[in-house]
């Protein structure tokens, strides 16, 4: 009887979900110890953490899909920047109504991703290098479209006064539930939900896991490998566009430099969650936990005003520690 019990606990502890949760709990308890004069116990801190990490989390949703297919998408940060610029140009400069601008931006983001996916699928190129090229290209395009300058959300009147150009930016960067939850966080949760639907409840999810697990077996079982890859990278681009719009709204401008190095954070989130970079395994819930872990880590370092050097060293150390917890049996 006792034996059986330890056995169950052991099995539970071996679950990726439990491990990811443990990593998160350890970080949170660190926060309780180093609470910066109680700032950590203020809901505002958690709300802000959630807002800050939302953009990374949104990118990580798409990254999860791509990583489960056995690929990687290094372009998300650049596509975020490109889409922040695109959305700003559309809505601020060209006066396209927000709804239409959003739609167009999301489509273009999905297109960027789909192009990577198509290159990976059609020419069997390595995802790392394809998306690296896309990363460089999208950044160039963002700079080209914006002429290297930020596109701020205001218009200068004839009398030299500044007025907000598109109120939608402000609406996106606000809070709901009595100011207790940022709208971008809600969007992040929606993205998590959408990814969960795709991965766990819809047909393509099954294909995504199958391709990551054994592409050849999947192909011989009639899985439309090419299309599924285009879909996965396309969704990654779509989420990058969502993140780009959120980023632009929070910055009140479209910055062609936005999102630089965000891809690394997104990957770190996915891996810290416990999704395997080899593909075929993982889930979006793990990514949600990973997002919170990274979010709290950053927040705790920030409220304690840890120096830059210390911050980097601690981040490196804690990533290793978290992944050690996660290390899969295989």
């Amino acid at each position, binding site marked *: 009887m006792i034996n059986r019990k330890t*056995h169950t606990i052991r099995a539970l502890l071996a679950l990726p979900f439990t491990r990811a949760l443990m990593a998160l709990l350890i970080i949170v308890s660190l926060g309780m110890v180093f609470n910066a004069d109680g700032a950590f116990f203020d809901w505002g801190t958690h709300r802000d953490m959630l807002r800050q990490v939302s953009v990374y989390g949104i990118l990580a949703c798409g990254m999860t899909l791509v990583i489960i297919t056995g690929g990687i998408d290094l372009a998300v940060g650049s596509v975020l920047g490109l889409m922040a610029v695109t959305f700003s140009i559309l809505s601020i400069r060209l006066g396209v109504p927000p709804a239409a601008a959003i739609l167009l931006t999301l489509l273009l983001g999905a297109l960027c991703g789909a192009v990577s996916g198509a290159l990976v699928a059609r020419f069997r190129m390595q995802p790392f290098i394809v998306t690296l090229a896309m990363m460089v290209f999208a950044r160039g395009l963002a700079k080209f479209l914006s002429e290297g300058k930020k596109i701020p959300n205001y218009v200068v009147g004839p009398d030299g006064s500044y007025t907000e150009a598109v109120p939608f930016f402000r609406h996106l960067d606000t809070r709901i539930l009595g100011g207790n939850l940022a709208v971008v966080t809600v969007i992040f949760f929606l993205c998590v939900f959408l990814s969960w639907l795709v991965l766990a*409840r*819809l*047909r393509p*999810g099954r294909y995504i*896991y199958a391709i990551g697990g*054994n592409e050849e*077996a999947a192909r*011989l079982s009639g899985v439309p490998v090419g299309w599924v890859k285009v879909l996965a990278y396309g969704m990654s681009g779509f989420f990058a566009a969502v993140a780009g719009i959120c980023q632009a709204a929070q910055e009140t401008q479209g910055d062609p430099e936005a999102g630089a190095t965000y891809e690394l954070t997104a990957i770190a989130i996915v891996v810290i969650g416990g999704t395997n970079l080899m593909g075929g395994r993982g889930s979006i819930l793990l990514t949600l936990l990973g997002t919170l872990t990274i979010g709290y880590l950053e927040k705790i370092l920030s409220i304690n005003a840890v120096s830059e050097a210390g911050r980097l060293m601690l981040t490196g150390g804690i990533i290793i520690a978290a992944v050690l917890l996660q290390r899969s049996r295989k």
Partner: protein
Amino acid sequence: MADRLLRMKGIGKSFAGTRVLEGVDFDLHAGEVHILAGENGAGKSTLIKILAGVHADYEGTMEVGGQVCRFRSPRDAATHGISVIYQELSLIPSMRVSDNIFLGRERSTHAGWMRHGSQAKACAALMARLGLDVNPSRNVEDYPISVQQTIEIAKALAFDARIIVMDEPTSALTKPEAERLFAIIAELKANGCGIIYISHKMEEIYRIADRITVLRDGTHVGTATAADLPRAALIHWMVGRDIDEQFPRHAPHLGGVRLQVEDFTVPDPHGRPYPLVDRVSLRVRAGEILGIGGLEGSGASALLNGLFGAYGRILGGRVALDDFPCAVRSPQHALRHGMALLTNDRKTSGLVLSMGIAENITLASVPKYSPGGWFNHGREMETARRHERAFGIRAASLTQTVETLSGGNQQKVVLAKWLETAPRVLLLDEPTRGVDVGAKQEIYALMDRWTAEGIAILLITSEMPELLALSDRIIVMHRGRITAEMSREEATQEKVLEAAMGQRSGVEGVAGP
């Protein structure tokens, strides 16, 4: 006994809480072949992996050459004169043959300077001794699986090992190659080596066995000399019950022509001017099993893969299904036309090892379980349960990942997957590879039932008795062409082998290349 090479006593082993071996005793004498038998998942490979130093944490003791040992690594075991041919190929496909042969025991100076020339020469000599036509400086992946398997054997023999372990060495070999291996085994015996041999092929076991040890569910059932353990008793030891060991082939109810193939050609993927399949024509009727015989490189596997669209659009020839022309472009397309292909390597092209049993079973018919895109997990589980019962798949749960299943159960999962697509034509490439007697029997019975339901089956198997007993008609291929066709009644082992070596009989010949 003075010439006892190995003695394992009370060996126990668990993986993450599951008991795999319990109190197993095993010993090996010089100059004997000791067969290790048992069902899939009985723990045979685990036992020899302990011997080989792969698993260092186990219970019990081990004596090699009268000396108590506990190996920490494969290297450790190798230095004690133990050489292993593993069940899963342990070659590096992207490396040269000579590099593979000497992997871990390179010929180099003390400073680590590689002596490539010396290795290549020694490798060529070894290949010549074993009668293999293999170029030491080509990559292993350039050769078909059967040749790779013989390279693996050569690798185990390249060093003066006293204990040689062979874990299903013939699972990918054709008859003549297996014969060559038996000759080598005889030679090794004469030189005083001890051989531990694992196999599911009964003919083979009785051909070479001196003693037999049987494991069941990780426990030691018994050890006996081959003479004292008749076939029926061995099977009883293995599965714990009697099995009526025969090929249940009922009189076929032949229907109309289901699959008609004319001048089918598969060009060489590397652009060499010799096609893998050269203008092959054949017909299979509903309810018929057409056996395809042939040696390594015969093109039989390429024929099935080509028919299924695994190499893309058909480049030469015509295919008709139930009299409708059908230009297969991809596996997806072939599936839609009612074809199913069981490939000869379940790990690399049959299963998604990281997915569960149920998920693998429904993989080829996902659209059926996701009408409108929404996955119906309940129905999927129902189906999986149905197949679990029909095939007798043994697993803790249907969500268990297939990587943790034994070979036989894995094979049943693949079969279930293809059957779930309700095929009209079933292409089977080595359906019983690595499968234990009990499971084999079940697969034979299933094939018989499927033909009764009107499915046409194309069957490749390297086990001659299987080919002769299951096929209603047999064609034999050699270098991409059909060299013989015979009915079930006409077929004999000799005739098939003759044709497989390239002698033509009863078929319109085309001038050779």
